[in-house]
């Protein structure tokens, strides 16, 4: 996944991509740390290896985005203490501490990945190559993670539908609320800790993106993943209706 020539972009567009790449690198590093933390939840070496491989995979994605930033001539901020990402990380670690593997799987594979996949595909559709290709390829790989997790989650739902849905609802309120705040029209904090200057949300139009569409695509994928798992539609609808906007 090496990059070739830096695409021809204005300084303003480059600046937007710098902020997008900051989100992407940081998000992948959070994913890496989450998978690494999940390793301790498994007794089975095969599951431990799987978790470590996932972490390595996310690390590879972070490296690819980091390199893309260098090729673009910008700096991607890597800040694991960034407001929203740190809140997500703390929530995740809470579930690791409680040894709740199912919760970890739902947060990482359903919630975080649905946001990542939809965002990467959206950026991949507008960014000039080679940047666009990087986002598209990583988006496709992340989508594979989701497919893999769905089978496992379907089995959990089969075993106890009401209990499973109640758990996902609680996780939704905890984690999706943070992700929704991240893409909300109004920020709850002065800065997310990843933009170089002003909040990038207002400048997304410079590269052919817009906040509302990104949010819509992410919600659409999230709901479709829940549908595939078998969560009842009326339940997930009520959950998304109460997300912050």
């Amino acid at each position, binding site marked *: 996944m090496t990059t070739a020539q830096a695409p021809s972009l204005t300084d303003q567009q480059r600046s937007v991509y710098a902020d997008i790449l900051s989100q992407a690198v940081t998000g992948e590093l959070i994913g890496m740390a989450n998978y690494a933390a999940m390793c301790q939840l498994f007794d089975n070496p095969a599951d431990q290896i799987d978790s470590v491989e996932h972490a390595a995979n996310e690390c590879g994605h972070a490296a690819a985005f980091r390199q893309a930033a260098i090729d673009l001539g910008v700096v991607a901020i890597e800040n694991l203490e960034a407001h929203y990402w740190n809140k997500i990380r703390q929530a995740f670690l809470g579930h690791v501490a409680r040894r709740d593997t199912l919760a970890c799987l739902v947060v990482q594979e359903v919630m975080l990945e649905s946001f990542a996949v939809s965002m990467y595909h959206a950026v991949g559709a507008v960014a000039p190559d080679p940047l666009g290709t990087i986002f598209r390829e990583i988006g496709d790989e992340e989508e594979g993670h989701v*497919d893999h997790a*769905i089978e496992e989650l*379907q089995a959990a*739902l*089969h075993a106890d539908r009401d209990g499973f849905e109640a758990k996902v609802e609680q996780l939704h309120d905890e984690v999706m609320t943070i992700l929704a705040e991240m893409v909300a*029209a109004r920020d709850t904090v002065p800065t997310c800790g990843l933009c170089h200057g002003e909040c990038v949300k207002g400048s997304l139009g410079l590269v052919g993106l817009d906040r*509302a569409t990104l*949010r*819509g*695509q992410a*919600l*659409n994928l999230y*709901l*479709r993943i829940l*549908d*595939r*798992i*078998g969560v*009842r*539609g*009326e339940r*997930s*609808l*009520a959950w*998304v*209706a*109460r997300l912050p*906007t």
Partner: protein
Amino acid sequence: MGGQVADVIQSERVGEAEFALIGHQENWPQIAEIVRGLRPLGSAELPLDEIRSIVPWIPPRTVSRVRVESYPRQREAAGVYIDTFITPDELASGTLRPLLAKVHAAADVAAREGARIASLGGFTSIVLERALGELRQPLAFTTGNTLTAALLVHGITAAAAKIGITLAEADVVIVGGTGDIGSGCARWLAPRVGRLQLAARHHGRLAADVGRLRVTGHNVTAVTDLNASIGRADVVLAVASMVAPSVDAGIAPSGALLCDAGYPKNLIVAGREPRHIFWGGMGVARGGIRSDDGMLERFYRFPVTNVGHGCMLEALLLALAQRYEPFSTGRGNITPARIDEIWRLAQEHGFALAPFFNGSGLWRATTMPTVAA
């Protein structure tokens, strides 16, 4: 949203519904009210532009679990209401492909719910009427148009009698007269009214339909000037596919009967006393229709309970009758005999005309009309 077809293959079956009602909402204020109702008490009010930016992204899904009973009680059937989340803006855009994708995704949800019969209400019936893309799901689909037509012709008959219009002498205009429902109503009404005038956008189809009805000796003509025809009409039935009301009903003579069965509505009635206007094609299930969570009632608000659009009620009726068949499909297949057949079935299971109402509420001093089969 290209992965939606693949989704159903890998998706878990959710329920054991017997029927599915597939529909969409008519206007933004209605959608906004639903969204507000879904949010917890005390949440910040969502502005309409935010709602408009989110709702189109919601994938078609079950929003309510519904039960219906025959009257007198013979059977109960359970099912689901699936909203396609096709928005008024999407309808107005005229871009068919994404809308059809939503209808097909909704059909996938119906299959996943285990439904044996599904009705495609409002715009979604276009898939069956125009045979746009094969529905491959293992269940029967019906547009519900035959029961809608039955409710319309019996509704007009009952309302006309109530306000003193003699239908056999009346001048009746059907707006949308060549559509599936409009043409079905025309065939049934032609021998029963004084003069029938059909209005339609497709002139070729209009001439052909009028020609066929005239062959049987009925007084049927094509409308050439809609305003002039409405200005002389005793009865106007509006049943055209429109994205917003655009037929001026204010020019109808005082005392005329106006029946609007459009979805979205066809008639502009601002400034008029709505005494003789009713929303047609509505029926009531005397045995009761109820949703487990009150969501169906939130999505479809009517002045009285147990009321629904004919297109939706047809699937309920067919489920109660255990006739899992595509009763209404294609365009132009609604014959008087089929209308009479569904009407008999409706009466067997306690389905009847809804009390007459419009946007201002129930007709005053109206009781449930009784109409002979």
